[in-house]
Structures are given as C-alpha cells and as structure tokens.
C-alpha cells in the first residue's frame, strides 16, 4: 500500500510524463537518430531516458529543466549505445548509407531532389564519421540549435571545448567533402 505522499508524487510524475512526452518525444528521437542513425535504437534510448527520469519529471518540469535533462540523458545513452554497437553499426550504416539505402535511391524523383539527397547523404555520412564529441557538437549546434553554453551543459564540457570541437569538425567536413568532390 502506497502512502498518500507517494501516490501524489506518482500522479504528478504521470502528468509530467504525459505533457513532456507530447512535447519532446518526437524531437528527442530525431536527435537520437542523428546521433545513432538507427531509429529503433534511438527510440529505446529516449524511452529509457523518460523511464529513468520519471520519478523527478514533475520537479524538472517545474524548474524548467526537463528538456535539458532529457536531452543530456539521450546524448549519454546514444554515446553508450554507439560504443556498444560500434562494429555492427559501422557495417549497418555503411550499407544503409550507400546505393541500397532507404530514401537514397533517386527513383523517379526530380533531378534536383535526387542531387540534394545525394549531397545530404555524403554530408551526413561525413558527420557520422567525425569523432564522437565533434559529431555531438555538430548535431546539437546545427540540428538542436543550441548555444555554446547549452551544448557545454549537455556534454558536460567547457564552452571553450565546444568551440574547439566545432572548429575541428567543420574543418574536417570541408576537407572531406572537398576531397570527395
């Protein structure tokens, strides 16, 4: 039998879960997909983040820090998953990013659409091959549109390190894409 205070805490967390899920589930899964390039695993990471945060969701929402907390959990979870599945993932993504990949084939689309997809694929592949920290900085800056301070908080590094990782990443990407063209 739960005590009344426990019951109230559970109800508050349930409400917070419903609201935060509606607001952030899709965006966080998309963030996870950009870091992992695997939708199913990204969903698992985000699901686990919600489950782990559940007891304190009400407080986090009240403090206005829920999204930052969940985002940090997702980035950490993706990093863990990426390491664990590293070898297998390199194979899977190498195939999915090539000629037989979903959405990569041009089919009967307009020529410009096909060219854009091809360019996107090359750029995304280059992003995926960046060192882990640089990849995280790139995704958080250019997809999540976070400030250096917010990225530093999410990755638990200094703003100066964020700037350095971003600079190195862009230099590498320009070099890689320039070499490929």
């Amino acid at each position, binding site marked *: 039998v739960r005590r009344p205070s426990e019951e109230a805490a*559970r109800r508050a967390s349930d409400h917070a*879960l*419903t609201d935060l899920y509606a607001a952030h*589930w*899709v965006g966080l*899964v998309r963030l996870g997909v*950009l870091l992992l390039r695997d*939708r*199913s*695993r990204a*969903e*698992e*990471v*985000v699901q*686990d*983040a*919600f489950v*782990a945060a*559940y*007891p304190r969701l009400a407080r986090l929402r009240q403090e206005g820090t829920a999204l930052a*907390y969940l985002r*940090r*959990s997702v980035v*950490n*979870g993706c*990093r863990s*998953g990426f390491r*664990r*599945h590293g*070898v*297998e993932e390199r*194979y*899977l993504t190498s*195939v999915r990013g*090539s*000629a*037989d990949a*979903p*959405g*990569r*084939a*041009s*089919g009967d*689309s307009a020529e410009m659409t*096909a060219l*854009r997809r091809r360019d996107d694929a090359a*750029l*995304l592949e280059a*992003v995926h091959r960046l060192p882990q920290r640089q990849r995280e900085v790139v*995704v958080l800056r*250019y*997809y999540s*549109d976070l400030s250096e301070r917010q990225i530093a908080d999410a990755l*638990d590094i200094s703003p100066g390190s964020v*700037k350095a990782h*971003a*600079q190195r990443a*862009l230099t590498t*990407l*320009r070099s890689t894409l320039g070499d490929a063209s």
Partner: protein
Amino acid sequence: MTNRPGPDGFEQLEAELRGALSREADAVRPDDRLDDIRAAVSPIRRRPGSWWAPIAAAAAVAAIVVGGWLGLRPSTAPSPIPATRSTIAPVSPAPSTTPSTSGTASPSTEPSTPSTPTTATTASTTVAVALPVYYLAPPGSSDGRFGLVRVFVPGQLPAGATVAQKADAALAAAMTVPADNPNRFVAAWPAEVTARYVALPAPEIGVSLSGPGVRGLTEQAQRLAVQALVWTVTAAVQQATAPVAVTVASGGPIFETVGTNVFKRPADQQVFEEVAPIWVDSPYPGQALAGGKAVVVTGLACVHEANVTWELRQGGSVVRQGHTMASSGCPQQGSWSVGLGTLAGGRYEFRATEISMKDGSVAFANVVPFTVG
C-alpha cells in the same frame, strides 16, 4: 530556428549542415511508445515500497550488457578465418531491444555519462558483427520475378578484420541459403563451390568461384544469382559502386547464360529491377529478443503505393495483422516499420507481404521467425 553563428568562414557549410540534418530528422516518424514507458514505470512492476526498483533493474541489465560487450573486445592479435561455409557461425548478439542507457538508468540527481568498466577479464579475439548478405528470392506469383533480399547475418569476425576477411565471410554466407529457409531463397551454388574475395587494382574488386553455379535456373535467376554475390561483396568492402570481376577457377561460364565478366550494382534509378519487393532488416531471422521490451520490425520496401501488409503469427495462428506505409513507393525503396509493442515470451513469425493489385493475392512475402525471451 535562430541559426546561431558559428566559426567564421564556414557559412555555406553550416547552412548545408542545418538543411541536411533537418531533412534527415524530419523524415523520422517515431512510433508511439508512451504506453511502453507507462508500463515500465507502472507500480505493478515495482517491488512494494521501492520507487527505484525498475530503474535499478534496468541499470543492472545495462551493466550486464556493457560487460558482455566488453567481453567481446579483443586482447590479442586477431587470427585469420578461413573462407569456408562455416565462417559465419550464428551467435546471439545483443538484440536491438536491449536496454541501452546505463547512464540514464542511474538514480543520481543528474544523468551520468556511462562509465567504462575496466575489469573485464574474459576478452576474446573476435567481435560480433551483422554482415549484410544478399539472397535470391523466388517470385511470389507465376508472373512475378526473382529479386534480391538483404539479410543481416549475425556472425563473428576477428577484431580488426581485414577487408578480405570481411568479404570472404560475407561471401561464404551468401553461397549457402540459411538452414531455416522460410523464404525459399534459391540455392544457386553447389555445396562444394566456394567464393573468395580477390584484391584487384582500384576501383575493381574480384570474386573467384571454385566452380560454376547449379544448372537449370531461369535466365533472370542466373543473372541475379551473380548479382547477389556482387551486392554482398561490395557491401562487405563498403564500396557499393565498385566493378566486380567474377571468375571461375575451374574454367567455363558462371551459369549457362552468364559468362565470367565484370559486374556492377545497377544505378540508383534501376535498383528496383534487382531488389525483391520487401526487405526486413530487424529482427533478423532467428533473432532472440529480450522480453519486456517493445518489439519494432523495420525494413525496406519497393511496392505498389508503398503499401506493406503484415501479419504476426504464433504457432501457425495469426495473432496480429495490419498495414503500414513505406516512406516511398516503387521504383524507390522506402523504409517502413511496425511497432508490435511488448510481446509475451515465445516463438513468432513476422510476415511482410505485397498484395497484388490485380487479384488481391500475395505477390511476395518476406517471412522472419524470431523469439522473445
């Protein structure tokens, strides 16, 4: 979006990054997992009086998984593997539904970065891999055509395996249809015939067959049986567009109507001419999924109006069925997924089918057996 300024001199690249990441993310349509999250935090699953029980359990599982993964990390020099039919030994790598956030499972105030255990003592010289292997599937109807089906075959490779080792392992798997073969993949190669990767001056790569394929296949099947090796070896070496020179060591043609030659995957626009209508990427055939986690089936399809019909069977009975849409219709391959939710333990069979627009019959079926632990 505010397009925050980045380092000077990269404005165009930054704009391209924003566009590419945004388009990639926008294409993602996550499944609804609110019920699964609610089930995971349900009081029913907690020990009485223990708020943290499910989280502690998740942390324990995650710790075991991390330990298991580390157990696969190499500590000694890799040993070469022979290119034989036994190269790919079925293993049980961590299923896609394995809990994956040891950091997020921590009950500490802030989410923690997953730590890197340093106490693993059972290191191995091999690592678990999932090799993309292409098989030849028969037509689903009398007026249909053969097509290639991609299957991720679990196996083990030496740590730091060379390109040749990867290619040989994938080719060995491609030469023999799986023992459990519900999709009736065509056995195009006699049991004694082997295939080996041959390094050639770039951009070409080579495949050397010890003998010709079986006789009596249709002309289209003969051509696609060779293409299955081309798709497999180019995937293994991660050079999708490489020309592949296929030779027969014993001399003569590969099949009655296909001589030795240099082959390639088709251009993107013609891929639909070689692939089977529906692929299932996950779970892979025979995969053992962890219980208590939502099962999501994913794959690719090149079918009419992007419509994929599916059934979940158990013990021969249909326990669930439905339709889903791929992200695009043929001639493009579109991605699709089906969320099955949390399944009770047992053996299941997932059947993804293309229904004929002409008469409603099953034009093609891709069957994947799997178990939930």
